[in-house]
């Protein structure tokens, strides 16, 4: 059964919300959804680069009222 993981990285700076995403990715499996909330603007290029590298699917990436929301479908776990 696929699961939904919520990663709340609001207010996090160095080493950044991407680290929380990676920690969650370790325990996730293909089919799972990871939703990340972040306020660090550096997260946008980071998550795009991460998606390109890993080949997972970015379902949504938007910024509203200073909060970045990225929704990722895990498809590339080996």
């Amino acid at each position, binding site marked *: 059964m696929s699961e939904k993981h919520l990663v709340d990285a609001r*207010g*996090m*700076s*160095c*080493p*950044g919300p*991407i*680290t929380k995403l*990676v*920690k969650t*990715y*370790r325990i996730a499996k293909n089919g799972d959804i990871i939703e990340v909330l972040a306020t*660090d603007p*550096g997260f946008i*290029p*980071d998550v795009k*680069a*991460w998606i390109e*590298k*890993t*080949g997972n699917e970015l379902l949504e990436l938007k910024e509203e009222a200073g909060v970045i929301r990225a929704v990722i479908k895990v498809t*590339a776990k*080996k």
Partner: protein
Amino acid sequence: MAKKLVILGGGTGGLIVANLLTDYYETVVVDRRKETVFQPGQLFVAFKGESPNKYKKEIKEVLNPKAKFIQSEVTKINLDNREVLLVDGSKISYDYLVVSLGVEFNYEMIKGLKENFEKFGDYYSGLESSSKFYENFKTLRKGQLVITVADPVYKCVPAPHKGAALAADTLRKIGSQAKVVLTVPFPKVYPAEKLADEYEKALRKHGVEIKTMFTLDRIDHKEKKIYSLEGEELSFDLLAVIPPHKGPSVEVEPSSVRDSDSYFKVDKYKLNIIGYDDAFAIGDNASLPTAKSGVGAHLQAEVVADNLLGYEAKFNGRTFCPCISNDTASFVISDYDHPPVRVRCSRFKRLIEEVFIAGYWSFLKYPRIWRPLMETMFEATKPSVLGEIGW
């Protein structure tokens, strides 16, 4: 009668709190080890073959003699009963508690990591494992030394970079043809925009090959390969792993004061454990939105001591983490309100770091004497002062 302060852990944070407050509180320090270690020294043991004795001292030597030291393991902390249980069954009650137990390493989380640790050692787990690593490192004449990060939350964020630069220097000095490869889980070589380019340039100058977005998934010792969560593989002849970290394995009542990695949830300014005004967690075992570092533990210790002396003090998330090679250094300087500023590598900054290393035991034992110097330095290098131009 003086109130009783119990400090768990005889590392940087714990000993500084003790040495600041022993004159005002009946102070007890508990640590399972007899010795305290200057952890950055592990780099010099592992990559330069320095003596581990230079980087450890008996806790009694650096603790105010009026404080009591108990060498024992803490098995349980009961925050509601204000009580600490030791492994021999004895109980210590407190009026105030400071938990500064550091981190533990989770070798089971990564397939092949325990075998790697037993075979090669590492430069994170202690001075002994650093010496063991050096015995393997000094005979490496060709092939690849890979330094890799298992999990993106670890203490001393520039430690993998320091290890890579020092390793490359030593290999060149001993005439080895071996190459150094550094892998990091971040999109750039360092997870701070204004430092990433500087560190990449410095590492390339040392001949270090860099692989970004490589988070260790598993180690295959038969094939001598590591595999990343992101789907890549890499060969090694010698492998140094920054092991996954977790909070101390002591039982805590109530358990709700810890996060999913067993770090203590604290107020990020006052450092009290959430829900308790008589218990604090500082240093690596605190869950804080800033880097885990010795400098952080030192500054947090001062904040807790000030508050316990009746002053209003707040931790501002300040970092001052050195990123060094043999001949140059930069510092990771940030706080809660400012991401790391641009700090160029220079020989003078390497000298500053050398002064810190030489003075460490004295900083630990006499924090009050050194405080004006520390405050002047931190004030002069505030991220808001350095600004866009950096340092």
